[in-house]
């Protein structure tokens, strides 16, 4: 290989090889690209486009009117509130879990990692159901909670706990491999030189892991705002009170208010697009998902 020019085996280098553009090769290439584009267009692009087309189908005025509905506004507020509570809690948990797992050796570590990952392997309906079984009217603590006038299920605390459960691993699973890979040398140097524990964390560790942390927080937030199944089970669907944005979409849709349903859906679609853009930007800093 010559010193200059594209790296051997890279996409650019392959295109310079003699015999690259055979008839069969070109046909296969076109076929593969065509199939990929067709599959993604039908399954991803068309649904994305239909959200906006349906939301604006009756004009911009009707679209904006959908957000004047007090129940829809309440749903937006509840979704924001839920994310505002759940994401920081899971971020703190993720940092603590990653610090203990990546920086120290102890028995049962791999079991702990598996258990942290558990919520993503469980059906969202089961995730919500767990808290109904615990705190619901006929659940373990149901009678006690009712006697003390505390409502968790069919109320906002239930929504928060269910969301906490489904987004539980997002920050931790991002930080654990990252911190394991980065090692402890700088932290050990900082501590040895007399830096305090918190100072070491904020001045040494946090800057090292900031992109991974941001990545995890972005994904955690997207799931927290968009969760449907688990929240649906615990919410009780009380309009204006316990409906989050995804639940409001369902309620409006079942009322045949398609403009309203797709208007709320368009906001969540924008959130998803923003999530993907941010994620790509973080990846461009050199932080890659393993």
């Amino acid at each position, binding site marked *: 290989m010559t010193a200059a020019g594209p790296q051997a085996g890279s996409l650019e280098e392959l295109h310079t090889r003699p015999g690259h553009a055979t008839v069969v090769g070109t046909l296969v290439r076109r076929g593969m690209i065509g199939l990929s584009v067709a599959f993604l267009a039908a399954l991803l692009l068309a649904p*994305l486009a239909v959200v906006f087309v349906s939301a604006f189908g009756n004009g911009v005025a009707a679209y904006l009117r959908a957000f004047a509905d007090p129940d829809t506004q309440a749903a937006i507020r509840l979704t924001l509130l839920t994310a505002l509570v759940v994401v920081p809690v899971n971020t703190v948990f993720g940092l603590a879990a990653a610090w203990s797992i990546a920086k120290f050796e102890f028995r049962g570590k791999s079991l*702990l990692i598996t258990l942290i990952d558990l919520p993503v392997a469980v*059906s969202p*309906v089961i995730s919500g159901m767990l808290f109904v079984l615990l705190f619901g009217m006929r659940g373990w603590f149901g009678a006690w909670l009712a006697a003390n006038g505390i409502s968790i299920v069919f109320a906002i605390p239930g929504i928060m706990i269910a969301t906490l459960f489904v987004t539980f691993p997002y920050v931790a699973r991002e930080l654990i491999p990252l911190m394991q890979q980065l090692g402890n040398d700088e932290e050990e140097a900082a501590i040895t030189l007399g830096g305090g524990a918190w100072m070491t964390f904020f001045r040494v560790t946090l800057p090292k892991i900031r992109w991974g942390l941001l990545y995890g927080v972005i*994904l955690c937030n997207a799931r927290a705002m968009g969760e*449907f199944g688990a929240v649906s089970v615990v919410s009780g669907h009380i309009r204006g009170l316990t409906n989050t944005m995804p639940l409001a979409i369902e309620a409006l849709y079942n009322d045949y208010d398609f403009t309203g349903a797709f208007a709320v859906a368009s906001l*969540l679609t924008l*959130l998803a697009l923003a*999530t993907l*853009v941010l994620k790509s930007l973080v990846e461009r800093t050199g932080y890659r998902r393993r």
Partner: protein
Amino acid sequence: MRDGQPTVLPGFGLTLGFTTFFLSAVVLLPLAALVLLAASTPLHQLLNAVASPRALASYELSFGGALLAACINLVFGFIIAWTLARYEFPGRRLMDAMIDMPFALPTAVSGIALTAVFSANGWLGRYLALAGIHVAYTRLGVVLAMTLIGMPFAVRTVQPALLEVQRDLEDAAETLGAGRWYVFRRVIVPAVLPAMLTGFTLAFARALGEYGSVIFISGNLPMKTEITPLLMVIHLEEFDYHGAAALGFVMLAASFVILLTINLLQAWGRDRMVRRRA
């Protein structure tokens, strides 16, 4: 850190204590409640919930649909991963970024959007209807939603494996006179097979538990288009906690088996990788 070497770093007790406490409170205690409730259900009631005709029909749809969706994703996941890993074309980066869309898009949104596209008067549904294919409110719609939701898993596991296939092996095979198809079968497929099976299993697991995107397009007819997660929700709404917990236990057991399979597949993949390199 090397094994057994003491470290000067602080915070072990605090962070591990907080982690275990929080994990127990949020994840383990609730899961234990489910298992205990299912275990304490009288046997005839348990069988009623787990083996009723309606439950059996829902397993058939949930497991069968997820299996079919995972098969579709096995094929198209490979095609898309191949396209992204091997070809340069306008829009490649955009396509690459779009693959993660189903992760980021709330399931309720993909549910109503898919239904709108594939209903009898939708953009694509109207042409399929002309051909006599009805997607919305049929089992086919369930499979479609399950396919969408599992697609990123299939692509994202195969893509890095394809990038890692040692190009010199392919080149050597071609130099020695192997045709493209032969190289594909004997060099590329064996190298990415563990990744493909892992992606298949992940897509299957995700589709099996999926709720939000399926219930809008399925129509939810008992015995016909009712998935198991929906049946659990119906039990809960009737305050039949035992029935819901019993079904939940079946689903959890399935997830556990799947998780185990994934771990074994990944170990197998690493093993092969090491042996190939050696």
